[in-house]
């Protein structure tokens, strides 16, 4: 390995550097004279590492300083803090669109971006490079000998029929703290009323609320909970070590598909290197059929063929749920459904 690579506990380091909260920081230091690309991302370094290493293979003069943070922190860093990053990667499509809409992003045009389908880019500023479904993850132990629920209606019926088995053993995002959870919830609510009925049921069974997909997957695998709703399918797929213990279900009534998106912030110091990196992301995910990329839970072809897969559209519609009033109302409604006091 040519790169001096180190991971630091960022509570030590991030404090004096930035006011926003970092979760992780990794430096891929190249011996070359080239620029250092500062990436701010909601994606765990573990999942990004192969892509980054492939990029550095092609561009050995560039160094990469990778920062991981939550989606809200990413947004905050780039707007309020005006922190200088060259690429912002986020699973929160709404926040990325908002960045671009409000003028915090810069244009990037290349052969790679032109190759993207119309719905996978917005304003030449937001570029989708993954397709990741929101899935239901079930514990194999708990569903031993049972028909697996394939739709939300199945799930509602199942929970209603077996309250004692699932009481306190359902997990889902806490949409108050998770940007991605909020995105999934709002899209679900927009797509079907079933979401609210399911939420009522889950709330009635003391659903546990999580910050992250990884935690939910872990708890399902360990049998801590029996099922988790709206888990990132790409993360679940990536945990091949746990596939013995879990089922990954893409609901047949509809499966929300999220795009991880990259934005080059207005304040980028190395926009050219950033453009190269964004092109690399797009090419390694869209262009290659069998890429080593761990995020392609859904291929563009699969998307075209399946009726139940519903990709979230990049566009101004995403701004609606970011509205102060709209968000407050949604969270009130959501809390009323999910955070019920036990009777």
């Amino acid at each position, binding site marked *: 390995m040519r790169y001096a690579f180190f991971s630091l506990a960022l509570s030590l380091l991030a404090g004096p550097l930035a006011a926003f909260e970092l979760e992780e920081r990794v430096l891929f230091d190249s011996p070359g004279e080239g620029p250092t690309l500062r990436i701010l991302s909601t994606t765990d370094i573990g999942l990004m590492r192969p892509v980054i290493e492939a990029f550095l293979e092609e561009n050995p003069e560039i160094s990469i300083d990778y920062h991981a943070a939550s989606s809200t922190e990413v947004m905050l860093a780039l707007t309020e803090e005006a922190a200088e990053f060259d690429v912002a990667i986020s699973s929160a499509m709404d926040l990325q669109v908002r960045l*671009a*809409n*409000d*003028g915090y992003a810069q244009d990037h045009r290349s052969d790679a971006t032109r190759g993207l389908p*119309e719905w996978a880019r*917005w*304003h*030449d500023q937001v570029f989708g490079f993954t397709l990741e479904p929101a899935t239901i993850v079930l514990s194999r132990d708990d569903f031993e000998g049972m028909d697996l629920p394939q739709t939300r209606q199945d799930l509602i019926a199942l929970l209603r029929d077996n309250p004692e088995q699932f009481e306190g053993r359902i997990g889902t995002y806490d949409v108050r703290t998770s940007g991605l959870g909020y995105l999934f919830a709002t899209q679900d609510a*927009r797509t079907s009323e079933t979401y609210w009925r399911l939420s009522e049921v889950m709330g009635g069974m003391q659903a546990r609320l999580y910050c992250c997909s990884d935690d939910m997957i872990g708890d399902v695998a360990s049998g801590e909970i029996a099922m988790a709703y709206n888990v990132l399918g790409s993360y679940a797929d990536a945990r091949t070590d746990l596939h013995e213990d879990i089922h990954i279900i893409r609901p047949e009534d509809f499966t929300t598909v999220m795009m991880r998106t990259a934005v080059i912030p207005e304040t980028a110091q190395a926009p050219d290197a950033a453009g190269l990196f964004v092109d690399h992301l797009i090419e390694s995910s869209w262009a290659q059929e069998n890429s080593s990329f761990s995020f392609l839970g859904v291929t563009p072809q699969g998307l075209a063929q399946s009726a139940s897969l519903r990709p979230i*559209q990049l*566009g*101004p*519609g*995403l*701004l*609606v*749920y970011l*509205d*102060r*009033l*709209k968000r407050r*109302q949604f969270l009130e409604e959501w809390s009323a459904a999910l955070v019920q006091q036990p009777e």
Partner: protein
Amino acid sequence: MSIFRAGTGSIRRRLTLQLLASAALLAVVLFVIVFNFARQIGAESQDRVLAASAASILEATAVQSGEIVIDIPYFAFSMLDNANDDRVFYQIAQDGEVLTGYDDLQTARGPGSAPNFATVAFRGEVLRVVTQTRRLSSDGRPVNVTVTVGQTRDAQAEVLNRISRMAVALGIGFFVVSALLAILAGRVTAESLSRLAASVSRRGPEDLRPVVADVPAEMRPLVRSLNAMIARLSGAFNRTEDFIAEAAHRVRTPLATVRAHAENTLRRVDREENRDSLREMIRAIDESSRAAGQLLDHAMVSLRVDQLELHPVDLHSLTRELADKLAPVAEMRDMDIRLNRMAGAEVMGDAILIQNALRNVLENAIKYSPADTAIDIDLQVRDHRAYVSIRDQGPGFRPGEASTLTGRFTRGENAAGTIGSGLGLTIADEVARAHNGQIEMTNNTEGPGACVTLSFPLR
């Protein structure tokens, strides 16, 4: 030399240029109209979507337990999505106080509750904004909720771009087609004019029939006046011919009468001084009679030369008849007219004119030669030409004088005592030239006397 005034140019070019200029103007007007129309339509359609968006937000505004609740529908913004990914901004205010959205967004102010539109600058972009207000009642007091939705205009600009490119192509296409039509129109118009010109100039000089060329309606007045002019011209020709004949008659008759009276009187008068006066009187009468005759002949010759009509003329018999006719005159002076080598020759021309020319030459020979001499006439053919030469045995032409004698009213020095007007050789010269012929005046090489030769091309 040109009888046309300069500066009027060519009808074809003028017509073509005028049509081209108007085609260019129309093309520009077409472009401007299409462009403005497109801009208006584009702006209107964006305004409509913006208004629908604002209306859908107001629609979702309600009062719940004394509080304003606004549930912005998803489609309020998603309907603004377009291929150019135009950016969207909004603001919702209650009685002027911003509830949510972009605080610094400028609203479109205007009277009434109808949507107001404005184009404003916002964060370095130009936005089209709509502002619409809805009045609600909360706890019995009125509340105004104002929604402003703004959008960048990239899509509109692109559509406008596309349409203006199309409009430019349309304008150019229109111009090219009109230009071709203009050139064609110019050519067709010019052609009908030149057809008329050709049909007029093709006709012979004697052809004074009216023009019947098929011409466009606009040119009919021209043809009509042209025909009227031709009619007047041919009338004038006929009248002039009649007039000359009439005038010759009217002048000669009284002069002949006066001369007869004077001669009668001379016979009866004995006093020598009276007789001298009478002789001078007779001489003056002869001079006048000759002058009038020659003038009228000359006029007639000029007229016939102007509209020369060619017919075959047998020069041989014409010369013979003329010699016979003047033989009595010659005899009065004991002169002999000898026809020597007389070849047969036929020429194209006006017999009256040719006869007139030969007669004047023969008269001169008789007039300017002493009595009791002979006049020799020869008709020869050489190199496709007929040569009629008349030789006398008189004094001949003075050296250097011959070339001037064809001038009008020009007489030689030897003419002092003889009656004449100086038009005879003028007539002969004009007739010869009108027939592509020549008159040559020399003196005989052997012996004294003048030799005048008229030559004409053979038929």
